[in-house]
Structures are given as C-alpha cells and as structure tokens.
C-alpha cells in the first residue's frame, strides 16, 4: 500500500512539473513575440506534443531566432526573430527537415 502511494505521488509530481514547464514556455514565447518580428510556418509530420521539442531546438539554434514554438494540432511553427537581425526562411525550412518534418508555406 505504501509503495502504491509513493508511486502515485511520484507520477503526480512528474505530471505537475511537466505541465508547469509547458505553460512557462508558452508565456515566454507570447511575450517575446510581442516585441519582435514573428513568422508562422506550416509544418507537416508532427503527431504529438513530444514532436515540438525536436523542431523547436533546431530552429532556436539559428542565429537571429529569439524564440520558437510549435503546435502539432495546428501544424504550425511560430518563430520570433530577434529585433535588428535578419532571418532567411531557408534556414528555418532546413531545420524543419532535419527534425524529420516537412515545411509547408509561410503563413505570416
């Protein structure tokens, strides 16, 4: 019984931690998006929340990218460009490809 309780508490803690991290990411992106050039790309192939991290990590490595946030349900990637810098769309498309996804058109 004690083991079951410990397992339940551990799983609950992990769940709360994971959800909290996700909300924090979203807040940061929304805030940074207000102060910078924001682009939206179509991305096909993402099929779960776990897919977000792969493409976001690769896009964030591109110089000039301030923040990147993917949404598998909307099939979109929102990229905030650092003010005063230029970003080539081809670099974003290449990052999407290396994440095993396919880029559609740039929506915004």
């Amino acid at each position, binding site marked *: 019984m004690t083991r079951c309780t410990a397992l339940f508490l551990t799983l609950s803690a992990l769940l709360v931690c*994971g959800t909290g991290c996700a909300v924090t990411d979203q807040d940061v992106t929304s805030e940074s998006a207000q102060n910078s050039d924001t682009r939206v790309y179509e991305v096909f192939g993402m*099929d779960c929340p776990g897919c977000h*991290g792969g493409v976001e990590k690769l896009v964030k490595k591109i110089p000039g990218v301030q923040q990147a946030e993917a949404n598998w349900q909307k099939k979109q990637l929102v990229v905030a460009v650092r003010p005063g810098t230029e970003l080539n769309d081809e670099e974003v498309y290449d990052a999407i490809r*290396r994440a*095993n996804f396919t880029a559609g058109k740039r929506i915004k």
Partner: protein
Amino acid sequence: MRTLLLLSLAALVVLAVASSNAIAAGISVDAGLTPAEDRWILRSQVRYMRRNNDPTPMDRRMNMYAFPAVVAYGLRPDFTLMVRQVVKHMDMSMAGSRSRTTGLDDLFILGKYKLYRRNTPQYTFGIATTLGLEIPTGTNSFSSGTWDAQPGLYTSWRSGPWAADFNVAYSWNGFADRDESGVNPGDELSLDWALAYQLSIGDNARVTLAPVLELSYRNISSDRQGGLDVANTGESVLYLSPGAKLTVSSFILEALLQIPVWQDQQGLQLDRNLGFILGSRYMF
C-alpha cells in the same frame, strides 16, 4: 521453410498496413523511437511476466521482472542509434523450493534508417529498416551466450488523432557462434501492431492521453544441438495488450497490460500468463 512463409506473411501485412487508414503507437517495442537530429530519448520501463500451469507434477512457477533502459540518439535526420540494457530479476519456485536470481541481460544495439517518409496535411507515413545486434555481455543466468543479429522493418501511419505502427523483426540467434555447451539458440520472429487515439487535454496542445491497443506475435524456434532440436524449447504466443500513454510536453508515461490470448509450447515449458509494462520516456 516455415520461417520463410512467416516472413512472407509479415511482408504482406506491412503492405496491408501501408495501404490502409489503420493507426497505433507502441509501448512494447523500442524500434518506434525516432528522435530528431541531435535529440535524445531516454526510456525506462518495468516489465513483469508470470509463467505457470506446469504440465509436470513439479509445480514450477516463475515471476520475471525486467528493467530495460533505452537511450536513443538522432545521429542524422534519417538515422537513429539506440542502446538497450536490461536488468532482470527472476523468482522461480519448484516442488516447494524457491530461488531468486538478479543479473544483466545482453547489451542490445540498434540502428534505424529511414527508407521513406511522407508528411502531408492529411497524414504522415513512414517506413524504416532496423538492424540490431545483441552482444553476449549479460550474466550467466540471463545471457543467451551468443551474438544475435536482428534485422527488422518498421512502418508508421499518423492521421489526425490516430496513430498506427507495425514492426516486424527477426532475431537470428547465434548467427556467428554457439553457446558454451554447443547449443544454437532458436531464432525468433516478432510481429507487433499498435493502434492509438490521442485525446487532447486542455487547449495548449502540450498534454495528450492516448488509449493504446497492441497485438504482438512471437514465434521462437527450438534450440538446436548437433543438428537436432533440443527438447522442451520453442514456443509461439499471441498477446492482446490494452494500455495508455500520457504525454506532457516532452515527457511520456506509458502502461500496458499484456494478455496472452493464444500460445503453443513445444514441450513441457510453463505457460505465459498476464504481464504488464509501466514506463516513462523523456525527450530532450
């Protein structure tokens, strides 16, 4: 001949899956792990399996706990490398006496190469080939004692909330050697289907709960020694396994109940009984 027939059947099933709108996402198979380039996936599980219904009067029973840890790394967009190490604990009882053993299973290394992937607004379909190598590094109680090769094929289909996966793998056990007693362990054919439906929780697309249904077939040939089958070795089993997967951003909790709905033991082995898998995955 039987193996060839089974492989042909497997190839047909792959084509059938590829041309249908069926869907899934596997918990019992590691071949589905596909990190993006320069991304890691860590998977750890607890697997329990019980064997009983002794056909002899010795009343043998066995409880097996396995703790696999898998590390997968995306070397390139089309190539994944993964390593699996399993710690096992076996509790065996026979005619009133009981023994417990803990040790390491053989180290398993798997390479996965993307043959084809098509991402469209409506669906995603992929085919990958896998090649695994099991190195006899385990402790005596759990090591096969031989170098084992495992070629395989993995297909996946995603459409909206649906996900379907199919994996076929053939373990060519003792392809280069025999164990210390001159026994060539029997080869193993594995067919695994998985079907899942993702339910979103909340509106930030970061949390999903997916009921999962898996169907797994295992055919293990008899061991061979001196050109003859070794008695009481070899078996076939079919599992029907309901489960669930909770995804929170890059973290996944998974659970599966394995129900052996059919089995054929070639000798006086114990029957397979219910088993379960509890695990987690973390991507970074």
